[in-house]
């Protein structure tokens, strides 16, 4: 689903004959149409209209509002409904262009309409789109802006469809800027490959600035499903709230997403699970407030930066590395580099999915670009190791180099279990260092931006 909308301006001129008059009057309509979807001619697109309507000598309302149904092929109709005020009376203009393949130009430009007041007809007329003077401004006015932030909630609902051999994860990583501690809350549903009932489990971990990481597991408990996210016993994650307790850990956090969703893997792989797994962030950044207690310590968060993420797939990779780096100023770098467990694919170099969300745009534009390049040529490279791993690559006129360092003393090693029962080991820290360098080609490579994160990057490396 595209996240872009459509905005355009349209001006039409014509005449109206009011029921209480003999002659007719000139009319001018200046409209701004906004749709939540990209205007595709073979589809039906609904748009909101605002603008100005002028009936010579009788009405000049700059606050006309209405709706537009644009369906030139599917319904062969472009339907305008505009409410406006004339001499204190509230009138509605209702009319449509009836698109005909035999008369494409006329039928796309002529708008016969009827005026109503309280459902009674009070006038009618015809408006025309002036091709000679109006076409260029009309075409030049088209914009396809990103739609307003979509609700993150819709990505929180469980994806698992009951099939065996699936795993689904809701996880959250946070950096507390006050204490420089890291927090990791992991909620997982595993549907074993042998068809036995799905179970929910997970853990909570804290990475203090000084001293080793602590964690506590919860579950497994039978998975009963939940419409709005993860819920098992007293532990829940979803709809802007995270709460639960495990061992000596107790947490209660509110989550406030900022920014649009970010698909680390191609967006289609989230909607259609054809890849071994898919990873995405319901919101590119999030702010967390609340408390996390572990043992006798308590972290009080107030708008702490972090992110929630979602994974759905068949299990863990053979080898992988993950980075979430809040670069500040609303910019985020998300990387997953992985080698698949699938036969054949397991012999390949790690596929790198790198998403740099910067100034409201995501680079590279397509997630496939960094992973497969142009049929393998130009794909991004990852050198996975510990304590340091690297990713670099070039797309378009920009290239990036990322170096992640996971301090061994603050890295938590945990065992993962795949749906098929095989085990993997992950080494995770929410106190990683990262150096990110972005360069641009200006005849020579010039440094465009650089970030150095010290203890605030969230990273993980896994293998078997």
């Amino acid at each position, binding site marked *: 689903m595209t996240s872009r909308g459509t905005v355009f301006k349209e001006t039409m001129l014509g005449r109206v004959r009011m029921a209480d008059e003999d002659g007719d009057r000139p009319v001018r309509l200046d409209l701004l149409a906004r749709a939540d979807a990209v205007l595709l001619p073979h589809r039906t697109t609904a748009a909101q209209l605002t603008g100005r309507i002028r009936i010579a000598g009788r009405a000049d309302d700059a606050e006309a509002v209405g709706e537009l149904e644009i369906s030139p092929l599917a*319904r*062969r109709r472009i339907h305008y409904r505009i409410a406006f005020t004339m001499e204190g009376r509230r009138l509605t203009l209702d009319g449509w262009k009836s698109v005909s393949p035999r008369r494409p130009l006329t039928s796309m430009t002529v708008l016969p309409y*009827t005026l109503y007041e309280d459902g009674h007809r009070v006038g009618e007329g015809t408006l025309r789109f002036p091709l000679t003077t109006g076409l260029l401004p009309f075409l030049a006015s088209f914009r396809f802006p990103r739609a307003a932030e979509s609700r993150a909630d819709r990505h929180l609902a469980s994806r698992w469809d009951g099939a065996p051999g699936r795993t689904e994860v809701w996880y959250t990583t946070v950096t507390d800027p006050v204490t420089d501690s890291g927090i990791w809350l992991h909620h997982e549903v595993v549907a074993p490959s042998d068809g036995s009932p799905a179970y929910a489990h997970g853990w909570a971990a804290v990475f203090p600035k000084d001293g080793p990481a602590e964690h506590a597991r919860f579950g497994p408990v039978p998975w009963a499903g939940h419409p709005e996210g993860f819920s098992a016993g007293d532990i829940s994650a979803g709809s802007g709230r995270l709460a639960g307790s495990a061992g000596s850990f107790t947490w209660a956090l509110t989550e406030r997403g900022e920014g649009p969703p970010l698909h680390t893997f191609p967006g289609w792989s989230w909607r259609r699970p054809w890849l071994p797994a898919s990873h995405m962030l319901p919101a590119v950044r999030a702010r967390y407030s609340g408390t996390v207690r572990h043992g006798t310590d308590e972290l009080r968060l107030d708008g702490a930066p972090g992110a929630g993420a979602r994974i759905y797939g068949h299990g863990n990779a053979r080898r992988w590395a993950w980075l979430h780096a809040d670069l500040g100023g609303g910019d985020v770098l998300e990387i997953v580099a992985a080698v698949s467990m699938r036969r054949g694919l397991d012999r390949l170099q790690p596929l790198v999915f790198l998403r740099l969300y910067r100034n409201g745009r995501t680079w590279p534009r397509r997630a496939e670009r960094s992973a497969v390049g142009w049929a393998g040529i130009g794909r991004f490279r990852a050198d996975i190791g510990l304590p340091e791993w690297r990713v670099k690559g070039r797309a378009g006129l920009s290239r990036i180099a990322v170096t992640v360092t996971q301090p061994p003393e603050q890295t938590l090693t945990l065992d993962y279990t795949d749906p098929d029962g095989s085990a993997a080991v992950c080494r995770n820290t929410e106190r990683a260092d990262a150096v990110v360098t972005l360069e641009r080609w200006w005849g020579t490579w010039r440094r465009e931006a650089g970030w150095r994160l010290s203890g605030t990057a969230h990273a993980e490396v896994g293998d078997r």
Partner: protein
Amino acid sequence: MTLRSTAALKGLVAALLADDGTTAWTRSVPRRVETLLDTMPAPARTAVRGAAAAVDAYAVVRTGRRLSALGPAERERVVASLASRRALLPLLEAVKVPLLLAAGTERSLHHSPTPEAPAPDDPPLDCTPSREWPTRSSADAVVVGSGAGGAMAARTLARAGLRVVVLEEGEHHTTASFGRRAPLDRFTDLYRDGGATIALGTPPLVLPVGRAVGGTTLVNSGTCYRTPAHVRTRWLDRHGFAAAEDLEAHLDDVERTLRVAPQPLEVLGDNGLLALSGAKELGWTAAPLRRNAPGCKGSCQCVVGCPTGAKQSVQLSVLPEACAAGARIVTGAHVRRILVDGDRPGGPRAAGVVVRRPDGSELEILSPLVVVAAGALHTPPLLRRSGLGGHPRLGRNLSVHPATSVAGRFSRHVTSWKGVLQSVGVEHLREDGILIEATAAPPGMSSFVLPGVGRELRRELEETEHLATLGAMIADRPSGRVLGQNRTLLRYDLAPCDADRLLRAQRAMGRLLFAAGAEEVLTGVPQAPRARTPAQLEAVLDTVTARHLHVSAFHPTGTAAGGADPERSPADPDGRLRGVHGVLIGDGSVLPSCPEVNPQLSIMAAALAVAERYTAGTS
């Protein structure tokens, strides 16, 4: 029209009517024929003109001069020579139909001009000509057609609170306007194609349908039969047409609305009384028909619009009630196609209609519900040109009630056109699917074609006051088909068993007339036109097959039948067109099979049921 073709037509009229210049009325017949031809569809017009030219050419070959240049005696010889060739008889018969229509009108105008009677005021209707209707409008429901079915659907939907717009291709004619004009002038206005709708087949049949606010109910005979119980059982059990479940209650409702009652004997007229006496003589069941004409004055003009306002056609009964409930009627509105939104969730959905005005411009009405009630002959083409004609059975299953007629000559004046047009039903053979009805018509408008040409025809014309006419219709197999998209093309091949029944009906009507005291029976068959005794009639009809008969039909039904089987029925048991949401079939097309009686009540009850089921389903 060229001068040459006009001269040919003039000559032909003079020859066929043996115009010797002694009477005034024959002189104006050619002009009347020309006017009539102008209203007919181009193929019929061309055929008549072509026939006239062919006869003219024959005269030139035979005499060296054109018909119009010949004297009466020579003309008579030419047409007698033509008529002696049996192969040419059907051609002459076809030409005679419009000619007799014009001649009958002219003769009656000269002999007994219709006195202009004061007409009552019609109940008010909210009619707007399409030229005054806005180019863009919307409604909750659009009803295509204002005939029996459309009116009933409109009333039901309007009473349910929907904003209803009824679209009618014809114009609105008031009772007062009928009183002011000669029957033939009204005839050309009230019928589609000037009444010359022809179904191709063997034999070809004439299938006139009305076109005006009120549809065919404006020009039907007013006979109101309830749907027979066995037909209703068949619709329910064999076809699964669920809309017939409450048929009895719906028929009661319709009968109340139309004020249906048996026709009193006082105004029946001699034609009907003779039928009654004949039936009594033979011991056959017969009775005055139940009609929707309280206070009928026996004007015998039902087929051209009742001039006294007695006949409760739907524009006097149902449509005023619909308009009182808020429905609006747009006249002169030819529906080009139904708009369909193909991308609606759940499948395609009707979105409104495109209407063509008489001046060629178009208007559109958006509506989520479209009731198609354009008549069984025009509903299938409308659906086809809207892209909704995908069902293989759409347009098939056409039943028409083929009808034939017989006249009896009596020694005394019968003057069949004084009295009720369709007065008496003889139900002796009804179980065999044959319904005999005493049916007269204004001069020339009867479906009975007088025999002979030249002096013989002229003599018959001068003596029409002595003729009584009967008609019989048979409950036919669905042997017809409506083809075409922009123009309706009809095909009807009479089933062999129906052909036998038509001949049986012919014999039965002959017997009835003899029993009533007829001196001579005119069969209407050019090859065997007369019989003076019952035995002679049997002998004469032994030589006749159904191909020789003049067959007309008045009751097309079944072309978008409703039923449970999706393979056989284009509409579902509730009368909703399959394959699209929001299209109801609300006319005779939805009837699953032949109703076996005059279908007005059946169509209205079915349309009522279809509309009620829709409103019940949505509320």
